């Protein structure tokens, strides 16, 4: 059918967060909490990890022991799990804002009809933000090598010259200031964009859209810097000796594709439940392309980072992959390769054809694969440097994933009820309703 044949669809849709959904999410959170408690009990009884792993542990583990690092306590695994999930979900949340901003800047029309979904995503940000801040302030030494007692003090037996050299950036006051800055800037700019958009529903016109372009562009400038620095702060500085100049956009690529998958999955699910009738196959096709393209982009960056280190083979760089392949009894080898399977092989093959990008079921399979895969991406980046040989994948991990996922869905659903599901007065809406890529 030609573009001129599209039937006129109503743009008046009010999302209802049903009692059924709420009950299911509460059950999910209950199961998650129960799994965490059971897992924590098992861990506190000394289970859940293999002490023989010590023998096979790589250099880094020995290294940590040399420094007389903190004795391992089972709560560390709880903290590390909270950190993995918070970083992952904070990233997914802020990608909603990122998507809106670059669509605004490019004055893209096609996405207008489903804008309310990325628009709702950053509403989850305060939860991971608070968890991250509390953990950084009170349990930082459990997570970060550079926060260990006396590591910057030449008199201390724990002194580490390499880490002390990074004191200008990696010191606790500046670290906390940075974290507060990230979250307040990200969340604050999102609040501005969100209220402009909701107001636009009532007053119409193009003023709010013009303003949204300006604030969105300001966010992109902020995010250009903070996406990199937050990746160093949240993830890279855990392995303090190690660094990668690609780490910022590697993490951004990971967040971005996970955020796109979340958006696509939400849109497909809403459509299945009878909402977003104005979203047509062309929109789904383009969302599928987005997921497909950024799957490849992530893989490109992931591999580029690996290849340079593999080729150059410098001990201080290669240790990072050594730890993940053979270190700590080899427990991180499986997650490392599951990562590439779920994040590249499956979505790449599944989303390759045109028809698959237009098929809701296939989109859902690809999106779930990406979302599960990028959890493992952050898992393999964070766990070896924090819990090392005491890591694993058990009740605690499942429980926290379930808790965070249900809380995320709850917050987003709640946010979606606060405005019409389609921005009825968006200047680009007409173009979006007729979006047709044949």
């Amino acid at each position, binding site marked *: 059918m*030609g*573009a*001129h044949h599209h039937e006129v669809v109503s743009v008046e849709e009010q999302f209802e967060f049903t009692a059924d959904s709420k009950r299911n999410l509460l059950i999910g959170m209950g199961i998650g909490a129960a799994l965490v408690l059971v897992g924590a009990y098992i861990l506190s009884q000394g289970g859940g990890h293999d002490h023989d792993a010590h023998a096979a542990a790589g250099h880094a583990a020995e290294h940590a022991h040399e420094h007389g690092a903190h004795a391992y306590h089972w709560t560390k695994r709880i903290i590390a799990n909270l950190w993995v999930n918070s970083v992952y979900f904070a990233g997914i949340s802020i990608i909603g804002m990122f998507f809106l901003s670059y669509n605004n800047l490019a004055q893209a029309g096609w996405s207008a009809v489903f804008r309310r979904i990325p628009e709702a995503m950053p509403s989850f940000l305060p939860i991971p933000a608070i968890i991250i801040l509390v953990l950084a302030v009170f349990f930082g030494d459990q997570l970060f090598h550079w926060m260990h007692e006396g590591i910057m003090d030449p008199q201390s037996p724990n002194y580490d010259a390499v880490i002390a050299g990074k004191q200008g950036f990696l010191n606790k006051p500046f670290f906390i200031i940075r974290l507060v800055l990230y979250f307040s800037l990200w969340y604050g700019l999102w609040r501005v964009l969100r209220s402009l958009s909701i107001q636009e529903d009532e007053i119409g016109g193009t003023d709010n859209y013009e303003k949204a372009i300006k604030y969105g562009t300001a966010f992109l400038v902020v995010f250009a810097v903070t996406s990199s620095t937050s990746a160093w702060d949240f993830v890279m500085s855990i392995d303090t000796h190690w660094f990668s100049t690609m780490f910022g956009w590697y993490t951004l690529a990971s967040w971005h594709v996970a955020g796109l998958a979340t958006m696509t999955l939400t849109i497909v699910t809403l459509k299945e439940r009878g909402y977003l009738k104005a979203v047509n196959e062309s929109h789904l096709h383009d969302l599928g392309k987005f997921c497909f393209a950024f799957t490849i982009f992530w893989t490109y960056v992931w591999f580029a980072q*690996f*290849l340079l280190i*593999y*080729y*150059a*083979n410098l001990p201080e760089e290669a240790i990072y992959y050594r730890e993940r392949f053979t270190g700590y009894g080899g427990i991180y080898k499986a997650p490392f390769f599951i990562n590439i399977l779920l994040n590249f092989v499956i979505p790449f093959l599944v989303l*390759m054809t045109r028809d698959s990008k237009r098929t809701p079921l296939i989109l859902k399979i690809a999106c779930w694969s990406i979302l599960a895969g990028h959890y493992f991406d952050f898992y393999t980046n964070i766990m070896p440097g924090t819990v090392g040989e005491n890591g694993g994948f058990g009740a605690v991990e499942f429980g926290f994933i379930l808790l965070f996922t249900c809380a995320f869905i709850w917050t987003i659903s709640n946010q979606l009820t606060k405005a019409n599901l389609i921005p009825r007065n968006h200047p680009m809406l007409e173009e979006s309703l007729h979006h047709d890529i044949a």
Partner: protein
Amino acid sequence: MTDTNKKFLVGIYDDDDVILDAVSKVKNAGVKIYEVYSPFAIHGMDTAIGHPRTRIGIAAFCFGVTGFLCALTLTTWTMGIDWPMVIGGKDPISLPNYVPAMFELTVLFTAFGMTFTFFLSNGLGPTVKPLLFDPRCTDNKFVMAVDLSKNKMSEIEITSLIKASGAEEVSIKQI
């Protein structure tokens, strides 16, 4: 083009919306449309004419696989077998080293392969004289061509259908 001595009815339109509607009207009346020519791409025209879907994606996949295998052969043969080289202490045949070449050749073969497939299937080339029903379709007019030999209806019937659908003029062209 290989088609010679064929009779075409050529309708000239002034507006892209008009010709998009006209295509549906003429087609619904039972006329088989040969092709539509336009100075720019018209959204929905492909589906309106009813052309079968392009298979260039399948071609792209095949070219990509060819490029991938060529690169794999090239790197393995030159670096690993013909003149084995140890770089950075790695085995002469170590796949991670070869990934950039495999990636690049996959992209290169796909890009060139698709371009040449496109030229071939559209009859474009340095010495080929393109089929041009009316030069104005490269400027401000929209052209609908109907192959008379492929249609059962008479010339007069089709002419009146094209006229009725909003064409400014209809002419006969022998190719």
